[in-house]
């Protein structure tokens, strides 16, 4: 074995250590994570190539089974569903649903018999499609009568102007990069109370529309789910499926293995449902609690390596494939890889993230040369040091590399564990 390989392996262990502390001063503790084994509350998650011909990079997928409400036979297992800790809700592309199942998923209608159609906004586009009701199963967990978005439904082919004005449509497997998405963020709904307040509709962000026909849609309000569900009917917002589980419904643990700094082929980890609800999902009392902003889900990040830079808004997101931040002095790649950094040699940085409760957690990370990483092997799809520039100051995106080699506990707003009340992360 070459010495360089040994060195890289050692470096990988070092850069993935999880170091924690409080505002009195961060302390370090050696990391190394254990992936929870198969169980009814554990789904396999995979960093893999995804459904498209061009392999995805640092994209996280799982499988879910969608059934017509109340049916155990009109069901379809859907793979390559993206796991997104940045958003909430199950969304499936219409093109992957079997006609038999699609026809049996009831449209959500309001009191005037208008169909509720959503404009799910993303940073790089929008997903337009109706809200339906479905039963979802993932591993042994069931979310019954779950409000789900069907993206790209032929019944609602064209988004209204304010929605289409937010970017390109993400309504095909090619453009969406997945067969659907399961959003398991710290929020119970994708929008929340702002989309629900009928007394003050001017604060509505405008994600939900009431459509009397495909061509006649107007922004509307949609209530949040009131749990436990008591057979109540009427529209509800597209929701984090976890809150619909009978148990294990207070959050998730995202567990991904440690990989080499040179990258890895397909790797698998675990999405564990519930925190402190089973013997296999107990909180790690050594972890610090990073309370997230109750409105945005964000925290502040400070890059401590000179020059020190503060990013007042940052978020932890398996839906982003790299660490994205503006920083002077790191060479940006050229040609077709300008979305990534390409330093001459791997750079090491230290940073802290700070919650509203003033807890400081230290996060060391490294920035590799994306050109070298991505060209080393055609089968590599996972990288723990993939980072890129952004021109917008004050923002730091902790994408998938952050999650590699960690067990990240993500607790939903208002939900309680032995450590704290959500929304929070601990790792």
């Amino acid at each position, binding site marked *: 074995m070459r010495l360089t390989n040994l060195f890289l392996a050692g470096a990988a262990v070092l850069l993935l250590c999880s170091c924690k502390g409080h505002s009195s001063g961060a302390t370090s503790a050696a990391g190394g994570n254990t992936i929870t084994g198969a169980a009814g509350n554990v789904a396999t998650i995979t960093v893999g190539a995804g459904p498209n011909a061009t392999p995805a990079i640092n994209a996280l997928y799982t499988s879910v089974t969608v059934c017509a409400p109340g049916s155990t036979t009109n069901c379809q297992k859907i793979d390559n569903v993206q796991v*997104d800790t940045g958003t909430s809700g199950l969304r499936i592309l219409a093109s992957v649903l079997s006609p038999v199942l699609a026809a049996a998923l009831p449209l959500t209608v309001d009191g005037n018999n208008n169909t509720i159609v959503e404009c799910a906004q993303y940073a790089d586009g929008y997903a337009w499609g109706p809200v339906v009701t479905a039963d979802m199963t993932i591993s042994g967990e069931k979310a019954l009568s779950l409000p789900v978005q069907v993206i790209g439904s032929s019944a609602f082919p064209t988004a209204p102007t304010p929605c*289409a*004005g937010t*970017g390109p449509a993400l309504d095909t497997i090619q453009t969406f990069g997945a067969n659907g998405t399961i959003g398991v963020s710290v929020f119970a709904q994708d929008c929340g109370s702002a989309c629900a307040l009928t007394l003050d509709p001017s604060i509505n962000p405008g994600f939900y529309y009431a459509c009397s026909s495909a061509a006649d849609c107007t922004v509307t309000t949609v209530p949040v789910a009131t749990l436990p569900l008591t057979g109540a009917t009427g529209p509800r917002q597209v929701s984090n499926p976890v809150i619909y589980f009978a148990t294990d419904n207070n959050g998730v643990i995202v567990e991904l293995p440690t990989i080499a700094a040179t990258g890895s082929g397909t790797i698998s980890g675990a999405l564990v449902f519930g925190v402190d609800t089973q013997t296999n999902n107990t909180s790690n009392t050594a972890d610090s609690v990073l309370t997230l902003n109750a409105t945005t889900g964000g925290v502040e990040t400070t890059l401590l390596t000179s020059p020190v830079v503060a990013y007042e808004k940052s*978020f932890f997101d398996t839906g982003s494939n790299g660490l994205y931040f503006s920083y002077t002095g790191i060479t940006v790649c050229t040609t077709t890889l300008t979305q990534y950094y390409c330093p001459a040699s791997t750079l090491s940085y230290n940073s802290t993230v700070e919650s509203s409760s003033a807890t400081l957690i230290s996060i060391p990370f490294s920035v590799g040369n994306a050109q070298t990483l991505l060209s080393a092997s055609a089968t590599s799809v996972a990288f723990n040091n993939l980072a890129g520039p952004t*021109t*917008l100051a004050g*923002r730091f995106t902790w994408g998938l590399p952050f999650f590699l080699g960690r067990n990240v506990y993500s607790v939903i707003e208002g939900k309680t564990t032995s450590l704290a009340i959500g929304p929070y992360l601990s790792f």
Partner: protein
Amino acid sequence: MDLDRRHQLRLGLLSCSVALLGGLLLCAPAARATLGSSAASIAADRDQLRASVRVTSHALYEVHELMLPNGVSVREYRVPDGIVFAIAWSGPAKPDLSQALGAYFPGYVEAAKANTDGHNHMSARRADLVMTSTGRMRDFAGHAYLASAVPAGVSIDELR
């Protein structure tokens, strides 16, 4: 020194629904001035809803900020008596970028379609147009600027 004057205005362009909900109209107001244009700013638009505009003067440019009651903010960076060289936005939803970016919206769409960062982040350049869009529902932010039109002495970090 910043000159800060705040006033209510009426918006000329509104995407209003006629759906009566609780007796109130649901409207999605939109900024008028667009990237690269020298058209009258959003401050020239008409008052409607409870949107407000704040104009802030800096040494090399003015910022006209349209703030909507739903928390969405659109800021246009203009050379005095000149063109809008940058647009920045933030809030729980994205603004109508087809209006804010005007003739440059197709460039954003093209870059967004080519984006491989994941749906919660994109940063790209198309000719003179440089743009970043980040965040997810509940918290979006982004900007777009014309690199050749940014006045000398203005840091990109200010365009946020």
